[in-house]
């Protein structure tokens, strides 16, 4: 049967770009604080909601939506860390405790969104989805179709990679992030203000989640489960790339994007339900981890 492979590849690129934007913040905070933050899903949703409020309810446009959502959700991320995870970590909480706490926090944030909507109807937040009104034109490039939003998603992913690369390797804060994730006590003993480094990273990470939330929201819809719907593939990306490894995440995002989309072609060819598309991403992850528990990180490590 004919398959328009070019389009499948483009679709993969778009999926991968979105996963990349969504997973960078998670991998950085995961590496730094040493636990998987499931409430990250809610940062994505919240980003979508704030973005929707700014862009649509206030009518301030997408650029403003990105900035406000980045800041607001960034602050939420910071507060979550400061108010919950930091005190827990100080009391010697294990990775499992932190992980379960993050699931609980996610539960709280997810259900707070509609509660906010109940108290402040002007926000327009509820369980019922909201839709961005901005529409995007579609272009044809030969056999391939692309919309403006898809191009923006790809562009943002690339730009983000470049900026973060410089941030991590060339700036003091970047180095401090890496030192802190390696040995926090010793980072303190080297005169690094570890707390500040962690705060900044949590702020940044949550802010990036918000950006992903807006992209996802603009492509689909925003509702309280927006983040949860994509958190498992995002975790797959983070782990496949090697936790805390930003370069690994770039590669993994596109691998998972590709696997999901090619998976759809393969599944339908086999007469199976495309529900399994997420399963394919995970099969790749599980096999990689069993063969190489470090994920792709092994390729992105200087020796």
């Amino acid at each position, binding site marked *: 049967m004919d398959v328009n492979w070019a389009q499948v590849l483009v679709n993969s690129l778009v999926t991968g770009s979105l996963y990349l934007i969504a997973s960078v913040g998670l991998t950085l905070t995961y590496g730094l604080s040493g636990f998987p933050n499931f409430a990250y899903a809610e940062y994505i949703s919240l980003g979508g909601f704030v973005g929707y409020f700014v862009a649509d309810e206030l009518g301030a446009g997408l650029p403003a939506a990105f900035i406000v959502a980045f800041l607001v959700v960034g602050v939420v991320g910071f507060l979550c860390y400061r108010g919950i995870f930091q005190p827990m970590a100080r009391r010697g909480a294990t990775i499992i405790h932190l992980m379960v706490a993050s699931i609980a926090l996610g539960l709280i944030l997810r259900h707070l969104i509609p509660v906010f909507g109940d108290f402040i109807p002007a926000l327009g937040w509820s369980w019922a989805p909201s839709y961005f009104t901005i529409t995007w034109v579609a272009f044809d490039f030969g056999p391939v179709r692309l919309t403006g939003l898809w191009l923006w998603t790809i562009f943002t992913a690339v730009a983000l990679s470049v900026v973060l690369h410089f941030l991590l390797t060339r700036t003091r804060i970047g180095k401090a992030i890496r*030192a802190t994730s390696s040995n926090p006590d010793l980072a303190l003993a080297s005169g690094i203000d570890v707390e500040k480094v962690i705060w900044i990273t949590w702020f940044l990470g949550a802010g990036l989640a918000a950006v992903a939330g807006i992209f996802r929201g603009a492509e689909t819809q925003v509702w309280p489960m927006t983040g949860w719907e994509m958190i498992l593939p995002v975790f797959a990306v983070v782990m496949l790339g090697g936790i805390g490894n930003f370069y690994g995440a770039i590669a993994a995002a596109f691998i998972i994007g590709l696997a999901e989309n090619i998976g759809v072609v393969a599944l339908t060819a086999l007469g199976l339900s495309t529900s399994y598309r997420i399963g394919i991403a995970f099969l790749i992850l599980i096999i990689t981890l069993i063969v190489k528990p470090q994920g792709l990180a092994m390729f992105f490590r200087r*020796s």
Partner: protein
Amino acid sequence: MKPILAAENVNAGYGDVIIIHDVSVEVASGEIAAIVGPNGSGKSTLIKSILGFAKLFRGSILYQNKDITGIASHRAVNLGIGYVPQTDNVFPNLTIIENLDMGAYNKKGKDSIKTGKGDILQMFPELAARKNALAENLSGGERQMLAIARAMMAKPKVLLLDEPLASLSPKPSAVIESKLEQIRDAGIAILIVEQNVKKALELSNRGYVLVNGALAMEGESASLLADDSFKERFLGLEQGH
């Protein structure tokens, strides 16, 4: 001589257990002070409490005549107090070079950092040979060298060293000993905890003996070394040996 760093009447410990009881130690610029004592007597706890890594229940820390009790650890470090912990003293997922860079995290001046790094690599050829290796793959002794080198990168005014010579073979150990003497002579204060009691006292000007969290003896290193009861209790040497 006026002490640059003094810990006065320190009561310190973990959680709500007090391990150090009313201990005072001090060190002046240009001298090496040693803390020795049996295992579990609280030497590491004492040093940690100076920088806030262990809980300080009572007592005060004076640095350059200023009270810095309760100051955030990283700020104390930035004031000029360098610290090498007894365990976990390198960044395992950073390379040797990056570890050294971290030591100079708050130093200004690219060139002086560069020469500092060069000097240190020259001092430890073992490290220079593997400067892009991850610290987690180093041998026990190589880690120890790296830990000390990292602390030196910051060019501190006071150095707190928790068993720097453990795990070192004679050659690097000698290098470090002479380096310590050298920086002492340059006017740096050094407080050292060491289980190699004899060596520590030979190296230092003054010694403190900590037993069960309290000071049991203190005095000139040479006189401690000459003290028969000290020799018997802490060096395991028979009297008159």
